[in-house]
């Protein structure tokens, strides 16, 4: 009896597949065409577009130009009112840069190394495990019973309160104990055919993205507490490389999953299906077929993640203090030390900008070469 219904299901699925396949491949083909050429625009529209672009260009570039010239000003040239052109309005000076390289303004060499190490490592890890999850969410069906989720929260919360209040466990210990039990119970429960609504892939993606809805101030403080307690148990996480990297991985995973799922879903599924007929194992399909096809999307997502992490401020503020301080903290610190010393702020901001501008150039090269077309859909 069971076998028969299963076969019916399978038949229905195969019919669906056969019906969908030609349409899907046609879609995939038509997407390969080059970008739309709208040179056929009327002259009036063309002028409007160009004016709009130039206006936005001025708005975008002026503050950056302003930062650039301010970094070469002397204090009088800043405080005496706005000056615009070097050698015309003011005599450029290298004082801000001399201060920075002499180490008067904080240890730039070390924070740059820290920022580079942490943001690169965290981006790589987030991209690897994030795109694995994104691929799974794009291709495999998942079913989570809503009751498994509710029970998970109930056991984790209740167990934490009981462990912390009555058994005198540490906060982190109580929570991880309760969390582990809750997870096992929830996974086992989910194997049973529970009644009630079933959460699918879209809901799981929404859950991942919703992790970014909570105010970061509270998350950062709670993480600081958790790291402190784990530190008492013998694993120092505060102000360490792995402490900051781990939290950055978790912090960027929602965005990686959200973007990469769209990129993977856009790939034609037939190639993978053909490989599956030949009994190629799933992990090899992923590594040798899917990842190369999604390379442009991976590159774009990697760069967005890297930019976010390079600029991250709040978590770095809470979770590091001296050894692993990152660049944004040092940039922000330029302001509060002795009032508004804008030449120093500008120079520090420029130092943190340069690597990102190199990235912007690489990103736009990739986009222009058409590597990134076919992305995000």
């Amino acid at each position: 009896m069971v076998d028969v219904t299963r076969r019916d299901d399978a038949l229905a699925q195969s019919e669906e597949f056969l019906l969908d396949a030609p349409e899907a491949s046609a879609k995939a083909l038509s997407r390969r065409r080059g970008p739309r050429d709208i040179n056929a625009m009327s002259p009036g529209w063309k002028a409007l577009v160009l004016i709009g672009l130039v206006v936005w260009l001025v708005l975008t570039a002026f503050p950056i130009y302003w930062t650039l010239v301010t970094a070469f000003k002397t204090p009088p040239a800043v405080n005496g009112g706005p000056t615009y052109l070097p050698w015309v309005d003011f005599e450029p000076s290298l004082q801000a840069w001399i201060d920075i390289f002499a180490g008067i303004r904080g240890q730039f060499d070390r924070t740059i190394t820290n920022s580079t190490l942490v943001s690169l490592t965290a981006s790589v890890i987030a991209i690897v495990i994030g795109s694995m999850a994104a691929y799974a969410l794009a291709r495999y069906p998942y079913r989570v019973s809503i009751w498994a989720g509710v029970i998970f929260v109930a056991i984790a919360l209740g167990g934490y309160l009981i462990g912390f209040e009555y058994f005198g466990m540490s906060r982190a210990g109580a929570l991880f104990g309760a969390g582990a039990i809750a997870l096992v119970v929830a996974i086992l429960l989910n194997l049973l055919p529970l009644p009630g609504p079933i959460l699918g892939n879209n809901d799981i993606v929404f859950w991942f993205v919703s992790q970014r809805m909570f105010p970061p101030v509270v998350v950062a403080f709670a993480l600081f507490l958790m790291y402190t307690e784990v530190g008492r148990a013998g694993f120092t996480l505060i102000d360490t490389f792995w402490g900051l990297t781990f939290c950055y991985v978790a912090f960027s995973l929602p965005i990686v999953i959200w973007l990469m799922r769209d990129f993977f879903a856009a790939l034609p599924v037939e190639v993978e299906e053909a490989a599956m007929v030949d009994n190629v194992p799933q992990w090899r399909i992923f590594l040798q077929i899917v990842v190369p096809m999604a390379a442009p999307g991976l590159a774009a997502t990697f760069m967005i993640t890297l930019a976010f992490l390079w600029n991250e401020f709040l978590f770095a503020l809470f979770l590091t203090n001296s050894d692993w301080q990152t660049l944004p903290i040092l940039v922000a610190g330029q302001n509060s030390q002795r009032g508004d010393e804008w030449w120093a702020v500008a120079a520090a901001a420029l130092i943190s900008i340069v690597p990102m501008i190199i990235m912007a150039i690489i990103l736009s090269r990739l986009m222009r070469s058409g590597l990134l077309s076919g992305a995000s859909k």
Partner: protein
Amino acid sequence: MSTVAAIGSVRDRDPMKHVFIWPALAVVLVTVMFPLIYSLTISFMSFRLVPPRPPRFVGIDNYADLLTQARFWSVVGTTMTIAFLSVAIQYIIGFAIALALHAKMPGSAFFRVIFLMPMLLAPVAVALIARMVFNPTMGPLNEVMTYFGFPNLPYLTDATWALGTIIAVEVWMWTPFVILLMLAGLATLPEDIYEAANLEGASKWRQFWDITFPMLLPISAAVVFIRLIESFKVMDTVFVMTGGGPGIATETLTLFAYQEGFKKFNLGYTSSLSFLMLIVVTVIGILYVSLLRPQIQKRQ
């Protein structure tokens, strides 16, 4: 046919599906579970770090106190104004610029690099630069404006102007995000539909509303959603530029949470504030998704 049929069930039962998803799930669970559960429990307590007193259970007092406070509602209003206005402007400008850059034209590579830059700067640095530019005596903006005969404007010290300035800075910083993703979306549109529309003599205006806009609705929905979520948490810009002032005119939810938690060390209060914010953002998110999903499905 039986092999094809087998594929569907192989995908469903393949153990690899768990191997693929669990690393990410585990990392997010471990990092997120503690902050959420910890702050949920202390949101029902009176918990101050300075002076250090043992936490005391107060039930829903924190929540009730917040909901009856005029400052809370003013902060909610400010946050919503900043989030909705700035995201709407970002989307309109960003989409328009993406459309313009999508056309083949000389110098578009140059435009793309410059246009991406604001997004790649640290928000703290952007806020500091903005403070320079908008400064009433040392900043260039007021000098240029007075040169053209406008009065010297209190960009950061007048309630309405300060709110407008913050929105402008948010738009400046995050429009590139919209441009980048809308460009990627535009690149996926099939050319032949436009050829057919051209043959039928449809105007560019009609083509945009009947083809481009509906086909980009899914990616638009995703971009706007992410920007809304992130805008609700806006803090560094406001903190550096106005500090929430004048008075509390530009105070946002996260800044309010920060002031209560780390100026007054009132952690229970801050946690309940965060949960109220989570509820607000989740409700907006669910409303948004349920309003848009039928639209997206209808048009596809």
